[in-house]
Structure formats: C-alpha cells, structure tokens
C-alpha cells in the first residue's frame, strides 16, 4: 500500500472497568480508501472508531492522525478533519437546511443544495422538511451531508446501514462509494461482513478487541474470517489475565489464514 497513512494505532489498548475492550491494536489505515472494521457486536469496533476522533482515549498506546499524536492536535480541529457519524442517525435541528448547517453555519443556500445532491437527496424534495420526517435512509444520508459540510478529510462511519432495510442500505452504500471515488477517505464499522466487503477497499476483522485478520475487500476467506471465532490456541479470553500483556501473539501469526470453521452468527 503506497497511499499515505491516515491513522496509525500504535499498541492501543482500552480497558473499562477491568474489561479489555481493545487489546494491543497495531493498525495502519490509509488515505483515499474506504477501510471497514468488521466484527461481531462487542468486538470493540465502535470503540476503535471513537479512538480516532478522541471520543475515547486509549488506556495505553497511541493514536496518530497523519503522523501526529491525536492528543497533540486541537481536538475540535481533529473532529472537523475526521468527522464521525454515529450509529443512530440523530437529528440536531428541526429543519433540513439547518441540519446541514449545524456545524457549518456560513454555508450558502447553493452550498446546502450541492451537499444534499452529493448524498443523493433531492434538494427540492427535502428542503423545508423536518429531519425527523425523512425516512431512515434519507436521514442517514442527511447526517452524511451534515458531516461533509464541515469539510472533513475522512469520514468515520459507525454502522452506517445497520438500521436500514436492504434497499435504503444500498443507497447509503452507493453514496459512500461515490464519496470515496471523489477522494474522501472513509473508515466504517460494520457487523455485516458481506456489505462491508462491498463498500470498502480494505477490511480489518476485529475479535474481542484484537485485529484477527486484514486484507483487501473481496479476498475469498474474508467472510470466513469474520464468521469464525479466533483459531484454537489463539483464543483471547478477556477474563483471563494471562491473555493480556506479554502473552499476545505476534502480528504475523494473527494475519495468517485460519482453518477453524465453526460458524459464529453475529
């Protein structure tokens, strides 16, 4: 991968109330592509996303944005450069145009219309309505427009389609693809490996706070990786103190294809 590095997770761990949510994560996420973090619920993937815009702080280790420790950046600037769109599409205003302007108050009407068009919403159809009157898929795309209005370098999307029916989800995915095609980097979190593989260029599989597989989307064993629990002998038990600290496996080992085939339904 010769694209510049966007985010670097440097041995990042996060422990909350004695529970290890993320366990020594070393990752490099690249610019100009869509990277999916896939994994079952509880695997720590949303938390990983929140490390990237400092909604969460690693207990140990570092998170770098374009080579700079995120703690050395102004947090508001970081969040404007790396805008996170939460899982629940939550309107913050009572009006579609106001919603787009919520963090970019100086946008002209033309800017607002162009942003709506960019997320495949028809300005003539949605302007003047309240965000809560939109369908789930439309609201999710409005949230994308609201995020784009800030002018980010990367969008962090937490389960952008999990609450949507398949057709609405496809529409949102199409918008995400078009944004990536226009040069925007995207990091998205998903429990749906098939969908993640379709929308992302690059996939990381997260299990119990550890990246257990990584690769280009569409690689055949990807679905298998996600659906399988970590291989025998690599099982990471969050309740087992011996599993923490120095006992974790080297990365090269974790990257290798695994052969267990017990399916785990998310």
């Amino acid at each position, binding site marked *: 991968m010769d694209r510049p590095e966007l985010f670097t997770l440097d041995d990042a761990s996060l422990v909350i109330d004695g529970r290890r949510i993320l366990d020594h994560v070393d990752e490099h996420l690249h610019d100009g592509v869509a990277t999916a973090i896939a994994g079952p619920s509880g695997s720590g993937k949303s938390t990983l996303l929140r490390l990237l*815009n*400092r*909604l969460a*702080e690693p207990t140990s280790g570092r998170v770098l944005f374009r080579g700079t420790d995120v*703690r050395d950046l102004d*947090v*508001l*600037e*970081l*969040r*404007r450069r790396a*805008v*996170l*769109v*939460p*899982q*629940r599409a*939550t309107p*913050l205003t009572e009006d579609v145009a106001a919603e787009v302007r*919520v*963090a970019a108050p100086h946008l002209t009407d033309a800017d607002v219309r162009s942003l709506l068009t960019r997320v495949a919403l028809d300005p003539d159809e949605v302007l003047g309505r309240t965000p809560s009157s939109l369908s789930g898929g439309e609201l999710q795309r409005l*949230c994308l427009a*609201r*995020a784009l209005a*800030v002018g980010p370098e990367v969008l*962090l999307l937490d389960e952008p389609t999990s609450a949507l029916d398949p057709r609405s989800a496809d529409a949102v995915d199409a918008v995400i693809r078009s944004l990536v095609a226009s040069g925007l980097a995207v990091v998205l979190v998903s429990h749906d490996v098939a969908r993640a593989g379709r929308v992302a260029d690059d996939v990381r599989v997260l299990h119990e706070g550890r990246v257990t597989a990584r690769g280009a989307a569409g690689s055949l064993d990807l679905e298998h990786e996600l659906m399988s629990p970590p291989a025998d002998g690599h099982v990471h038990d969050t309740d087992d103190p011996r599993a923490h600290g120095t006992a974790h496996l080297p990365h090269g080992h974790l990257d290798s294809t695994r052969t267990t085939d017990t399916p785990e339904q998310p």
Partner: protein
Amino acid sequence: MTQIPSWTAVAVSVLLVLVAVAIASWQRLGISREIVVAAVRALVQLVAIGAVLAWLFAHAGIAGALAWIFAMTFVAANESRRRGRGIPRAYAAALVGIVVGTASTLGVLVLGGVISTEPQVLIPIGGMVVSGAMQASSLTLTSLRRSAVENRSAIEAALSLGLPAPQAFAREMRTAVRTALVPTVDSTRVVGLISLPGTMTGLIIAGVDPLQAIRYQIIVMYMLLAAWAVSALVTARAAQGSLFDDAQRLVPIAA
C-alpha cells in the same frame, strides 16, 4: 399589632394534633406515631430556631446576618447536590449557583435601599432567597443529569462534528434552565389568586394594612424570580464545566 397567641393558646392548639391522631387511629392509617413525632419535632425545631433568631436579631448585626445566610447556602447546596448525583462536582456547581443567586439578589435589594439591613429583615428574606435558589439549583441539576444520559447520542453527534461542548450542549442547557424557572414563573403568575403567600399573610396577621403588606409581597416575588434565574443559570454553567472533560467529551454519568 394584633394579639400574638400565648403559650396557653399553643397548648390548646395541641387539641388539633389529637384530632389528626384520632382520625389516623380510627381509620387505622398506621401513621399515628408519625404524626406525633412530626408534631413534636415541629415544636422543638421552631422553639430552637425562635431562640436562635431572637439571639441573632439582638446580637448579630449585619455581618452576623450575612454570615448566617452564607452558612445556609452550604446547607442548601448539600441538599441540592443529591439531585445531581452522577454529575462530577455537583456540590460545587450547586454551591456556586446558590451563592451567586443569593448574593446578587440580596445585593440589589440592599444596595437599592429596597429592604433594610437589620438582621430581622435580612435573615428571613435571605432564607427565602436561599431556599428559592436551592430549588432552582436542584431542578437544574435534575434536568441536566437526565439530558446528559438520555441525549448522549445527540450530544456526541454534535461533538463529532467538531462543535465545542457549549454548543453541543446548548439545547440541554436551555431546557434545564427553562425547566428550573417554570415553578417560580407559575407561582408568580397566579400569586394572590390561588394562595395568599407567606410574607403578606404574616404581615396581615400581624396587623399590617393589606395594601402595605402586598408591597412587601411584590418585592419578594420579584426577588425570587431573580434568585431562581441566576441560580439556575450559574448552576447549569458550572455543571456543564464538569460534564465535559478537556478533550470535549461528555463524561460518563454514574447511576
């Protein structure tokens, strides 16, 4: 002045407690004992406070009266903080709100020459102000706490757009202060129609002409509006400072 009841009169009024106890035991309400305890407590507490006030009025002077009021703000803040359980430093937020609300309101009254500075005026008026400020502070903390828990996803959505905490939390702040002001605005609106409030009632019983008594009541109502508003706003601002950390994150709210 009209005649003030003697201790003999008070003794006769004990019959009224017996009426309440009789009803409770006749209807087997199971609270006879509680009624007696409450009545005794009321007697002891009021005798004690009467004695304290008599001493204060005779000896305290302005400085003593202000010290008394200041001490009351700490008691009030301690009461208020329970409403903000889970909000870090809720006690400090309540205290600063109550102190600023009380000081600013009393300051206007005293410096404007609206009320006299004798302890027998300052202490009861100060008590009303502190009590109002405390209720405003409690309601504010209750509302902020609820908002911070229920609206977390919306607040984090706003923070995630790079909005600073005061902007991301602006709706919750407005709601909290507005909610805190509703009771006093309501009671101000209907004053005199539904109940005759304490200040004028007391003055009228003591023999003051009603048209003079209401002047005091008007001042009291207006002073409470200010005390509630200032206290709610300052408490909300202080609590907001504790609800977000240096990295503009909404802190976890303990149950």
